């Protein structure tokens, strides 16, 4: 495609098109358009405003977690405890408020500290033991699953928490974490706003700050990064605490929108976050990816999971579609990246 103008092409300014082709999320954007068009044709109720707001909400619940998980994966690590951590955060918040008969906000803040501590634990164990993050966070995942069930049963006497809707501070906390605006037939939930803000912040960190360079460097090769003076330990712990922070936001959303939390939930969701990040162009090996991509990945997930329902297909096939989409998206990403590298 290169044009022969007689100028050394290394000196030619890179065109906007070429810049776009080099973005990690390009493949996922193509995929998102394809999925959107597909379901617009296959499902008559897919294009209604109310359906699209449902899809956006569904995408935001995954996307809020997919953004920090994408950053973590660019930093070259995994977090398998992210799914149950969301439930843990909601449980801690609810049970602390209830048992202490405290203002709901106290529980919310305690939950923030506890969740951040879990994130710190993940990062600290990883940097201290030098074990792969897969093993460390698998351990955390299992421990949290057990703690969620065990503690809830021990404290509440049942498998779900008690209602805190009649306590002080509930309505203001609900306004922050689970409010919604209805415009005509469309209901927009606040998680969509949280999601957009988080993706914007994550993108800013990645592309405009020193910490962003550190994340790419650590994911590209920890030893080389250390040699050039990158604070590897601090970066990794920070990344895990970022995941914990977002798990706290998600957890509070679940608590304040449903008021009661089931102790056994959240298992398996960690893979959805990873899938969203990978569809969005993150590499499993680290050092490459984007936060915007994770948002596109989450949007694809939202379209698929709801589109299958709108198309009135049998949901037994949902997991099959998810797997096929993951493969296709990853292949597309790899192909686009190869093309981009060949041109650069």
């Amino acid at each position, binding site marked *: 495609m290169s044009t022969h103008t007689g100028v050394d092409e290394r000196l030619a300014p890179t065109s906007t098109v070429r810049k776009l082709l080099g973005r990690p999320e390009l493949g996922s954007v193509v995929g998102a358009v394809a999925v959107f068009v597909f379901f617009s044709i296959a499902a008559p*109720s897919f294009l*209604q405003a*109310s*359906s699209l707001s*449902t899809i956006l*909400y*569904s995408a935001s*619940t995954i996307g809020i977690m997919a953004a920090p998980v994408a950053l973590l994966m660019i930093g070259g690590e995994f977090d398998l405890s992210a799914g149950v951590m969301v439930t843990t955060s909601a449980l801690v918040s609810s049970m602390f408020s209830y048992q202490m008969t405290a203002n709901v906000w106290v529980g919310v803040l305690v939950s923030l500290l506890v969740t951040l501590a879990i994130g710190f634990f993940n990062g600290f164990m990883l940097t201290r033991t030098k074990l792969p993050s897969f093993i460390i966070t698998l351990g955390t995942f299992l421990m949290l699953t057990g703690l969620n*069930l065990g503690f809830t049963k021990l404290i509440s006497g*049942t*498998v*779900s928490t008690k*209602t805190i809707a009649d306590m002080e501070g509930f309505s203001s906390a609900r306004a922050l974490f689970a409010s919604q605006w209805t415009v005509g037939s469309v209901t927009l939930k606040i998680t969509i706003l949280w999601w957009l803000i988080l993706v914007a912040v994550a993108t800013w960190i990645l592309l405009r700050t020193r910490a962003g360079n550190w994340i790419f460097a650590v994911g590209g090769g920890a030893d080389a990064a250390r040699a050039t003076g990158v604070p590897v330990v601090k970066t990794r712990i920070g990344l895990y605490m970022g995941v914990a922070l977002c798990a706290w936001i998600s957890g509070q959303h*679940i608590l304040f*929108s*449903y*008021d*009661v939390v*089931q*102790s*056994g*939930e*959240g298992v398996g*969701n960690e893979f959805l976050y990873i899938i969203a990040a990978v569809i969005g162009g993150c590499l499993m090996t680290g050092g490459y990816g984007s936060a915007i991509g994770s948002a596109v990945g989450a949007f694809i997930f939202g379209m698929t*999971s*709801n589109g299958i*329902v*709108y198309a*009135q297909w*049998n*949901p*037994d096939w949902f*997991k099959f579609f998810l797997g096929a989409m993951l493969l296709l998206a990853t292949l597309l990403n790899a192909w686009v990246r190869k093309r981009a590298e060949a041109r650069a």
Partner: protein
Amino acid sequence: MARVRTGVRVVGAVLAAVLGASLAGCSSTGGKRAEERAKAEAQGRPAVSTPRWTFAMVTHAGDGDTFWDIVQKGAKEAAAKDNINFVYAHDDQAQQQAQFVQNAIDQKVDGIIVSLAKPEALKDVVAKAVKAGIPVVTVNSGSAQSAAYGALTHIGQDEQIAGEAVGTELSKRGKKKAVCVLHEQGNVGHEQRCAGAKKTFSGTMENLYVEGTNMPSVQAAVQAKLQADPSIDAILTLGAPFAPTAVKAKDAAGSKAEVDTFDLNESVARDLASGALGFAVDQQPYLQGYEAVDLLWLYRYNANVLGGGRPVLTGPQIVTAAEAAKLEEFIKRGSR
């Protein structure tokens, strides 16, 4: 080239052999053919001339759940009869289940059937459906919340009452020490069953939590429990697939305990008839699905509401060796 040709020949020979064997070796009992015969007997054609309404059913079933498969079957057969376009969705996570109900509202369906295993999570979205003028019937779990949330009727089994029936039956059989095997940590209905059984049982009963998604570990856990306490003389499982596993565990541990279970399936019916199981408590899942669809149809067609504001119960029904033989063919068909 020659090698390719031999390859083709070998494949051809194998195919011929398989075909020949399958034609020559027909089974005169069971199999696909018997299933198709049974299906043909219950062929679904609309029996009414009402418009083609769409009803959506959203449950808290996990993937590949036997019990919910039967509920779905009942619903589908009622839908065929009532000229209904039936849509089904399920997820064991409350958030996703609420999402599916929202999807149904978005699609402006003519009726919604929902199971309230996690009532609070579905409260808002059910209210939304009612506000949108969509009739809602709750099914299987949530009898306490159904009316308050604005549903027409609840159809299902009261888990507490079902548990109490089991406790009474165990006492009648002279059992002294029972163990209640919960295969799903975090399930409120399961807790209620065990609590109900404990309440009316004259002996002592304790709970044992096992990992229901992993059969070998269920067997190991029950086995370990029986080895640790040889005085246990009754094991109660809360789902049909776990009864044969408990029987295996019992045999391996050399225990004399009687295994009893909630719900039915083919192997439970067989084990009841052969005496390997004591009794089963059926809540007639087929009826839950069938009636839910039919009640919505009745409401749309004739504004009929069943139950007088109270839950309509489909169980518990105690099934012993005597009844098992009668039910076996229905169970085989997948409708009991």
